[in-house]
């Protein structure tokens, strides 16, 4: 069987950001600039993608043998672009129409961005099933993507897997009313990741449009490029089992896996002398292993009375380790390890450690007699001196365990659903403590802990340094804290009404009323500011969903 497909997607979006003249941004404008108050930023973007594929399939079943062979090619292009400009001068609050702006912002210019990526893949696969009991799969694909270096665009990938439906075996028959389903499976596959920026491998120039030299326009090098940039590949071994008990009342699923990623892509820093500060390179190999378990239990299931109560939960464990780094990356990290990078820990990666390791100097706490922080140096001597070379792996900024659990309860037409997320077993570098307490500018409004919790006089046993320390605090293990977090992600209650006389009276078929909460609470062992990027919001939304009868006259 031969089949072709073509998918086209286009999406247009616009953004309108209007700040009226009374907005605090313009508070500092002088009276001469009164006509400049009020801004309107307008953006218009378009994304489009198309996918074309051609598939050939062959299926044959002889007695208990079923075989499927397939081959396909697919092409894909993703394109996105955006333009953006800003106008100003809306002195009157009542006018918020872009066309009424008095002028463009001074020395403002239109901005925009664009990216196009293309991918092509050729796939061949084979699948064999024997008697619904044994499965075997094999797939091979050759992929090319535009984001990689000219010489390394194409890469081959393959996957294979076997499975066994044990519940069809005769020896399971006697207990099939208890164990309805039991499947074990094993697989290995290599996949490539192409979620990288569109032009990373190209050496590019761009024209300097806001400057000129005499009568001439100039072009400047924007990226160094890397013609030998390769696909990042991940090989994954997976072993899993799925089972259903008591007519689907209990569902259990378990997987263990090991992932080996090679040609890790990362931006690598360069000395200034190279003329570029960084470039993208394949830097090494990463190993990950872990397991996942999922359980779903129907505690009450009564379909006649429409009473249901189920609880579902999962837990996942993951550990990662850099197993190999390129010489360039090692050299870069050796240098990085000697740098002080302000008050946040440098992103150093080392062979044999997790890629999320937090490197900080070990702290012995605050000296009660001086209010200064004590550190053991490399030779074990105690010093007040923070030395970047003394940094050790102080924690892993990624939880070892994470998961969700949720419960659904339904009684008649009322249903309630609550879901929670949790994570533990990792550490966090508490940036808030260092920025807002230790390095806070005391001339400004500060966190109360600056006043109450910092060392003030000899004998004070405190977590924070002396209040009069003027040199900045640098990353020490004092700020690396164990993280245990529980969040309530969502609570949803809904009530559905249908076939009620009063609904009919107003021509409605049914009405559903839903109340939905966003993140309701967040408890964590690490207390830190979430900042403006992802502020904590407590929101509840209500929704009415009416359905109307179609009336015919």
């Amino acid at each position: 069987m031969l089949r072709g497909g073509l998918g086209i997607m286009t999406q247009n979006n616009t953004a309108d950001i209007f700040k009226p003249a009374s907005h605090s941004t313009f508070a500092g404008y002088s009276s001469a600039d009164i006509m400049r108050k009020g801004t309107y930023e307008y953006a218009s973007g378009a994304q489009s993608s198309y996918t074309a594929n051609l598939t050939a399939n062959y299926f044959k079943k002889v007695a208990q043998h079923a075989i499927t062979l397939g081959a396909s090619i697919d092409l894909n292009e993703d394109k996105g672009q955006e333009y953006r400009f800003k106008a100003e001068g809306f002195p009157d609050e009542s006018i918020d129409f872009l066309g009424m702006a008095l002028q463009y912002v001074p020395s403002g210019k239109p901005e925009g961005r664009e990216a196009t990526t293309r991918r092509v893949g050729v796939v061949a696969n084979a699948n064999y099933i024997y008697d619904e009991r044994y499965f075997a799969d094999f797939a091979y694909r050759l992929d090319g993507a535009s984001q990689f270096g000219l010489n390394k665009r194409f890469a081959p990938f393959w996957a294979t897997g076997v499975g066994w439906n044990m519940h069809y075996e005769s020896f399971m028959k006697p207990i099939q009313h208890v164990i309805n389903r039991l499947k074990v499976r094993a697989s290995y596959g290599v996949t490539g990741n192409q979620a990288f920026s569109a032009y990373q491998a190209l050496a590019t120039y761009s024209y300097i449009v806001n400057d000129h030299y005499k009568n001439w326009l100039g072009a400047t090098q924007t990226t160094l490029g890397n013609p030998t940039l390769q696909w990042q590949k991940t090989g994954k071994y997976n072993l899993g089992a799925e089972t259903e008990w008591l007519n689907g009342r209990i569902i259990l699923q378990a997987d263990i896996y090991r992932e080996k990623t090679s040609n890790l892509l990362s931006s690598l820093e360069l000395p200034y002398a190279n003329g570029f500060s960084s470039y993208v390179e394949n830097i090494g190999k990463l190993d990950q292993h872990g397991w996942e378990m999922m359980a779903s239990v129907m505690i009450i299931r009564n379909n006649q009375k429409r009473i249901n109560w189920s609880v579902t939960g999962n837990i996942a464990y993951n550990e990662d380790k850099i197993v190999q780094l390129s010489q360039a990356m090692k050299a870069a990290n050796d240098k990085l390890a000697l740098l002080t990078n302000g008050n946040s820990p440098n992103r150093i990666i080392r062979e044999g450690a997790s890629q999320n390791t937090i490197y900080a100097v070990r702290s012995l706490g605050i000296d009660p007699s001086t209010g200064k922080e004590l550190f053991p140096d490399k030779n074990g001597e105690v010093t007040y001196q923070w030395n970047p070379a003394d940094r050790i792996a102080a924690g892993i900024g990624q939880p070892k365990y994470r998961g969700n659990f949720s419960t659904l309860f339904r009684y008649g037409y009322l249903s309630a659903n609550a879901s929670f997320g949790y994570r533990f077993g990792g550490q966090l570098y508490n940036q808030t403590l260092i920025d807002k307490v230790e390095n806070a500018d005391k001339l400004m409004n500060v966190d109360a802990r600056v006043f109450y919790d910092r060392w003030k006089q000899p004998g004070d046993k405190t977590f924070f340094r002396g209040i009069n320390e003027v040199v900045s605090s640098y990353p020490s293990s004092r700020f690396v804290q164990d993280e245990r977090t529980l969040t309530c992600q969502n609570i949803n209650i809904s009530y559905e009404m249908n076939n009620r006389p009063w609904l009919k009276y107003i021509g409605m078929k049914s009405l559903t009323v839903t109340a939905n909460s966003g993140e309701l609470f967040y408890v964590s062992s690490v207390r830190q500011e979430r900042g403006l990027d992802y502020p904590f919001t407590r929101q509840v939304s209500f929704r009415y969903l009416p359905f109307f009868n179609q009336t015919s006259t």
Partner: protein
Amino acid sequence: MKKIFLSTILIGALTGSGCNKWLDVKPVAQTTKDELFQTQKGFRDALTGAYIHLKDNKAYGNSLMWGNIEYMARNWEVASSSNVPLMNLANANYTDATVRGWLDGSYEQLYKIVADANSILEKIDAKQSIFTDNNYALIKGEALILRAFAHFDALRMYGPLPGAPGTTAVLPYVKAVSSQIVEPVTFQQFVLEVIADLDAAEALLKTTDPLTKYSLTELNPPASSSLPPVLDDDFYMYRQIRFNYYSALALKARVYTWMGLTDEGNRANAAKYAQMVIDAKDRTGQPTFRLGRESDRASGDFTMSPEHIAALHIYNLNDVANGAFGETGSLMRYDLNVTDGYYYLNNLFPVSERGSDVRWLGMWAYKTTANMTNYVAYKKYIQRPNENQRVLQVPLLRLSEMYLVLTEAAKTKEEAETWYRAFAAQKGVPFTTGFSTTGWENDRKNKIIREYVREFYAEGQTFYTYKRFNVTTLPASWTYTYYSATAARYLVPKPDREINYHNN
């Protein structure tokens, strides 16, 4: 079976060369390096890009011209004591993080210019056939001088004292654009690389540079001129604001001087190249450059454009200069309005000698704003009121330096006096009795140091002059803050990042 056959053909067709081309996505808002260097215009645009980088604030548009580097020479007062980083910079306290940020920024910018030149140089030879006329020689020659110029200033700033260069590796001389880390080389190797690039540029430009034929006036027609330009192609014009043939010679004179004139070879070369610039003639036999003089100053050409061997065009120099040097500008000297009007400046420009000194007359003036009246503003870059008569360029190499090089490189007292007298006559410095009879060499040295300061004030040369002579104290109190220095002031740290990469 037929279908499998069909799809096999399709797969084959797609994975062929056509497919690779389809995957060759070019950005729309940018151009790729390979594409840019397909045309002569692309090479020209890349070269212009390098000049735009040269006039960046972190390079010769500020920091290395009249900004940071002049604070390091104590030519400006830090008026606001709350500006701690600037205080630290002037006090040569290079451990201040902000100061390091500024110094690192200039280093980064210089090597960015090097990379600009390198991209041109690594592509130009393979594409020689696409160039028309003399474009190949001009672009390649200019790129070579750019590379030499930026490297040499990195050496002057971040390198060792030229009097004690040692034999350890100092800085990398970068000749390719790649991700490979370039190992630093010794001072001696570094200067040889600079000279080698300048030699190559000299050979390329000697017969091709329009400046070897036409006069500055012909190549810099005023905007109001109704005459047709001497050259049709605008790109060949305005050679003064590009690294021309004579800039290669003048830069060599500067490099050999930096290498040390006590060495006979350096001395002879410095003198030879300085002499070649002075002797430059256009097709009518007129000298290409002439020393600036009173008539230039009187007409408002304060940077003395007839003596610019190489200059940097800054289209908005009028605004830039008013902002930095004007009434509200921050670049200024502290002084006391005593009998002769000044106290500190009187030491730099003695009352008895400055009557007709073109670097003095009308160039300095107290500010008039309340509380600022003890600060003296400098006029060098302030432009003429008439927009069409402005000289929108800052000098990188000037003819007066060639006279000072020859003075310094002269072997006899008489020869030195001849060169210095020629210089002094145009600049309005009285020099009737010659250098002092006892220890004339020392007198010459002191006069040379003073001339470099007076002549190249706000041109970023004072610091290098002090560094070259390892000046520890100035002859007299030229400045409000007493200038005392140790070698540590002149050993400006390279960015930490470079030290770490190179482990030295």
